[in-house]
């Protein structure tokens, strides 16, 4: 009933043969805020009001009530209710009456905050002063920015080999900026290693690079780094886990409400899958990639805007198109021009049944259409969902969709340069500070068949990337590019850098990925499948069996890794301490148990459970004849220890020398508990026997892919240190992480257990040898910050580390280096 007053006025106008309205009563006129007393500046004072409070319904191509404010002409023309203003007479103007809200049913704006008295005063003054508009102001329909696949003209000069620099040269000239000298080799190398593979440059590689005199050595370095597929994938996994809401633990994974895409994602990165194929496989997924559009299915009732198809619509829009559809999922958006029906039309593509539109969580009775945000890229016509998804993926990756490439190119520029071409990166409808650059990079990306590594190379080999870091400051006004700001290592980069420094990484990966096959090393086939009864590989009794194995070690252990699996689940104890567990026989687990072993007698104890058929945990009542099914334990331990100054390799494998028991004795997992009553384990057969048929190379491969303690942070679930440093909970899409240092982070770094442990073990690793402290300090500097220490630094550090080297001194020195801004920041 909102247009009643206006309609009545209009009709009464018709009846009386003119558009005359009833004037305001004297009382109402008295209530009007006084007109502002200064000369009005339209652009600064009136245009913002129109844009904030009026364009939603009367601008940007809309014309509610027949009223458009595209130009001064259309504005003065008015709408169904008559003219908006009487020039020179604000008290008689319909506009003023409506914004005053004398009639609550026809107050303007209908949605959003009402105008304040001072704003009305400005409007009054403006009307009284003649309602002038600045030249060329257009509040009508604006073409979406950064959408069309246009190519900029590249300047013809031959000064620069990379068109990025040619374009930037034009920008610098226009902004009267002189090209600064490029950063030196060390700074460049550190940036490139961290940006491409997420690791610090190894000192020997770094020194070789610095000493190299060949032409275009920087370009060659970039190519080399891009060819390290595994390290590359491990680094970019984090970027995509954040954006695709993928994690190894979290809400929904246990109850089936959420599905990982880890295996697919890692493989796509390792093989440098073209970006358009990548997007197509996420939009129109296989079972391996469907986790992204599946979202999180919450148990219970959720707001209508959060049902999985709506989540899919929001996620696809944000990640691939740089459009925020979250607001439009509940109502027509207040922050952009997208509408509720747009969000539903996109969500509907993923729905199993046509969706009803809910506004603010209340049903409207209106059913959703079916279309992509930009139907001009391709219509969605199919009734079959599978075909619809295919059509959608074709739309999204259509050559007409210039937004796809621009959104991604913009994100990468932002990653490498610290600030993107369009900010914020999830609002691609904003103007770029240089659209030629954006357009060039996007079209270059497309021309090279969406090759992501080519795009990375394009940016990182530009002179723009090699500019010295600038101090951007906290709040930017009128941004002008002069170079990349100083950046901070991400949580994962910091953690991996610590691994480089200390040798202490993660012992096992949570990410279940298949890596590329390792170089040919002889297969390790000595372990046998064992259980406590014959024929367990076909007819094992359901229930728990305890296993023990003891052996002697002569010298200190430098490395010890276990590869094992069990049908169905196991818990591993080493010298009484729990060391790991597993519950899927098809996936071998690797554990780094070096710290748990000792000289002398050692004990491996395993609690192994054979489930009932159907993967159900057995209970006394349910273990009945007929419920027998395959059972088996497979175990391999490789130990490297020092015996008489010589490196010795020892292997402990599952075989008949183990003992087993079905009875749980108190302390069964500890040394010193007699296992005389235990019976010898029964060997069932070699690794490859039925029913498991594991490959002979499974153990070798597992060992090769996971060197001890160097598993990277991207492959493990978050720990307190990672969380403190900014690893997000990936329930929402995360496209950028905040980088400012916080007090809680600092507390975690100052006395948190996680970091302390790393430093302790690192110091143990490093101080174990008889290296002189000077050499140790130099090595740590070279590894940590890529240079030799100055004599002043050396002197300080040697004092702390001590000579001979003190373990505590090394610990504290490692801490200090890790806290250095030079270590934590990317200059």
């Amino acid at each position, binding site marked *: 009933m909102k247009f009643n007053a206006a309609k009545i006025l209009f009709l009464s106008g018709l009846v009386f043969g003119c558009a005359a309205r009833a004037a305001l009563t004297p009382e109402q006129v008295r209530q009007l805020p006084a007109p502002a007393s200064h000369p009005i500046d339209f652009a600064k004072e009136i245009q913002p009001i129109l844009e904030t409070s009026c364009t939603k319904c009367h601008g940007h191509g809309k014309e509610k009530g027949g009223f458009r404010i595209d130009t001064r002409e259309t504005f003065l023309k008015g709408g169904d209710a008559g003219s908006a203003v009487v020039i020179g007479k604000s008290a008689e103007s319909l506009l003023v009456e409506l914004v005053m809200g004398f009639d609550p049913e026809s107050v303007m704006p209908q949605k959003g905050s009402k105008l304040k008295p001072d704003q009305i005063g400005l409007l009054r003054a403006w009307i009284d002063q003649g309602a002038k508009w600045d030249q060329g102001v257009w509040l009508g329909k604006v073409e979406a920015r950064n959408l069309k696949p246009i190519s900029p003209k590249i300047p013809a000069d031959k000064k620069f080999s990379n068109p990025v620099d040619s374009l930037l040269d034009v920008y610098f000239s226009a902004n009267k900026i002189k090209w600064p000298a490029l950063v030196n080799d060390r700074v460049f190398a550190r940036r490139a290693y961290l940006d491409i593979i997420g690791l610090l440059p190894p000192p020997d590689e770094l020194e070789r690079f610095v000493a190299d005199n060949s032409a275009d050595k920087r370009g060659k370095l970039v190519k080399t780094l891009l060819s390290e597929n595994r390290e590359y994938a491990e680094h970019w996994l984090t970027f995509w886990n954040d954006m695709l809401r993928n994690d190894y633990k979290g*809400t929904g994974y246990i109850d089936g409400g959420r599905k990982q895409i880890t295996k697919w994602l890692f493989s796509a990165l390792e093989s440098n899958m073209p970006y358009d194929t990548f997007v197509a496989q996420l939009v129109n997924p296989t079972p391996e990639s469907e986790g992204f559009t599946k979202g999180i299915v919450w148990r219970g009732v959720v707001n209508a805007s959060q049902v999985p198809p709506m989540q899919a619509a929001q996620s696809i829009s944000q990640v691939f198109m740089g459009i925020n559809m979250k607001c439009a999922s509940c109502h027509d958006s207040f922050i952009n021009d997208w509408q509720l029906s747009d969000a539903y039309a996109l969500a509907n593509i993923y729905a199993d049944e046509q969706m009803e539109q809910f506004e603010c969580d209340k049903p409207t009775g209106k059913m959703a259409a079916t279309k992509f945000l930009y139907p001009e890229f391709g219509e969605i016509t199919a009734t079959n969902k599978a075909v619809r998804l295919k059509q959608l993926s074709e739309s999204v990756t259509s050559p007409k969709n210039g937004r796809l490439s621009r959104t991604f190119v913009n994100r990468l520029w932002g990653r490498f340069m610290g600030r993107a071409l369009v900010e914020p990166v999830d609002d691609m409808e904003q103007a770029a500070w240089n659209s030629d650059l954006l357009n060039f990079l996007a079209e270059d990306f497309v021309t090279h068949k969406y090759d992501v590594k080519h795009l990375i190379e394009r940016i990182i080999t530009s002179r723009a990337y090699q500019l010295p870091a600038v101090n951007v400051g*906290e709040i930017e006004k009128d941004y002008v590019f002069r170079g990349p700001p100083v950046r901070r290592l991400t949580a994962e980069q910091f953690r991996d850098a610590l691994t480089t420094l200390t040798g202490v990484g993660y012992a096992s990966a949570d990410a279940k990925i298949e890596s590329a096959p390792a170089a040919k090393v002889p297969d390790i086939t000595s372990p046998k499948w064992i259980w406590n009864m014959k024929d367990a590989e076909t007819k094992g009794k359901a229930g728990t069996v305890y296993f023990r194995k003891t052996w002697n070690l002569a010298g200190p252990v430098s490395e010890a890794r276990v590869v094992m699996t069990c049908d169905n689940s196991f818990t591993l104890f080493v010298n009484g301490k729990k060391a790991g567990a597993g519950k899927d026989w098809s996936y071998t687990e690797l554990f780094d148990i070096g710290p748990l072993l000792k000289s002398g007698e050692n004990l491996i104890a395993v609690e192994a459970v054979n489930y009932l058929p159907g993967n159900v945990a057995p209970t006394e009542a349910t273990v009945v004849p007929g419920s027998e099914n395959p059972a088996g334990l497979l175990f391999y331990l490789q130990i490297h220890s020092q015996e008489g100054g010589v490196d010795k390799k020892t292997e402990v494998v599952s075989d008949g020398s183990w003992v087993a028991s079905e009875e749980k004795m108190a302390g069964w997992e500890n040394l010193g508990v007699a296992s005389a009553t235990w019976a010898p384990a029964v060997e069932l057969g070699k690794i490859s026997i039925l029913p498991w048929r594991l490959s002979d190379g499974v153990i070798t491969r597992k060992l090769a892919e996971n060197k001890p303690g160097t598993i990277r942070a991207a492959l493990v679930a978050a720990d307190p240190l990672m969380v403190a440093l900014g690893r997000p909970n990936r329930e929402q899409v995360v496209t950028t992480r905040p980088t400012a240092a916080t007090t809680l982070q600092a507390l975690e770094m100052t*006395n948190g257990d996680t970091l302390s442990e790393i430093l302790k073990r690192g110091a143990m690793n490093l101080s174990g040898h008889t290296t002189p402290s000077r050499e140790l300090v130099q090595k740590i500097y070279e590894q940590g910050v890529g240079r030799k220490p100055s004599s002043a630094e050396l002197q300080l550090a040697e004092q702390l580390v001590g000579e001979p080297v003190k373990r505590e001194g090394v610990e504290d020195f490692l801490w200090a280096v890790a806290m250095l801004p030079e270590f934590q920041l990317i200059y």
Partner: protein
Amino acid sequence: MTDWNRRDFLKTASAATLSALAAGFPNRLVAAEAAEEKINATADTVIILWMGGGMASTETFDPKRYAPFEKGMPTQKVLSTFPTIDTVVDNIKLTEGLENIAKIMDRASLIRSYTAGDLGFILHSRHQYHWHTGYPPPQTVAAPHIGSVIARTVGPRNPAMPAFIDIGQRFDLGEGEELKAFHTAGFLGSEFGPFLISNPEEAVKAVRPPEGMSPARFANRDKFFKQLAAKSPIGQLGSDYQKESLVRSLDNANRLLSSDAAKAFDLSLEPKESYAKYNTGRFGLGCLLARRLTEAGARFIELTTEYIPFQYWDTHENGHTRLVDLKKNIDAPIAQLVLDLEKKGLLDRTLIVLASEFSRDALVEGKPGNEVKGQVAQPDIIEDLKFYGMHRHFTDAGSVLCFGGGLKKGFLWGKTAEERPCKTIENRVVIEDLHATIYRAMGISSKLAYEVEKRPFYVTFDGKGKPIMDLFG
């Protein structure tokens, strides 16, 4: 407050908050109508006593007809498994086992009509998220914990102490991921996240040098670091906010460790007699820690009995016997906390709120008329003591016990039915109103909003929270 009143702000803000702002935290305060509201705070500190798991209100603060255990009794008969006891306030009764709290009810405001949201299936983590952020999950942005909102809005009280401290919850168990989801500052930024102390007895570790490091070595390490940093060539590249925020954050951390406030974390410094009064277990000692931290200038503390699926208040069976223990755990320490704060003249400006995500009933799951899928097998006839108690999840009533902070004393708010279903029949309280009340006590408008992704996110659900003015003295 579209422009910070700089001088006032600097007076009360810590270096931590300043560094946060300087580091360019993206969220601007969205003024709206909130700025026009001038609220005089009646409290400086908030202590939430979180009874995680679903505390049965008819077994604690809202007694109903008592039916003692008899083998063969019908479940229907069971409304309370504890007899009613008097308190020092005539019209307020509690259940047996809360005698100490009964003695101080003349300092209390008791709400009996808290009702949880309708989230379909009963899931602790979802209701806990809802309780702590005021928004039902899932949300399109990471919603902040009420403690983070307060930390961000009013800042720390003692600049050396983290503004938001969370005591008693471990995260490597059970629903760790879902629990983490609301124990964060969300989009407000991790500067305002909780400082976690999972075991109050070991709280002092959080403010000491790492295990095995002497204070002398710790100080030496820091001195050495500063010298090394000064020698780094980066210094010559000029200052920038990244470097400054790194150095400043380390300084803040050190300041806490070397401050007087750090002593508050050390329970061994408490006189033995007083310690003994609190020592009923981890929660009791947590109350002692909360008191000490309040004295030392804490702003927001959440102390929990800890949520572990099926443990503590999450009674899917043995409801009665477990509540005997739970009440023993909480009764004396809570009373002592209130009395001690009162003695030290702090109670009036400290708002204590005891609450749980929902209540329990022996039969009803959810709300009458809006029941949800049952999750607990409860026989019609009780043969075994383990079925005697409140085992189902009841969301149509709930007790919230408050002390201090400018609220009325000896006051009762809200009524529940005497017969099953013991639902709220008067003055229903929903989470946004409860939050609005807490915010008002802290001088914060319920319509305050922070900007995230260009939209306002209100500190109470869509800005609709209304403080319960009847509660204020």
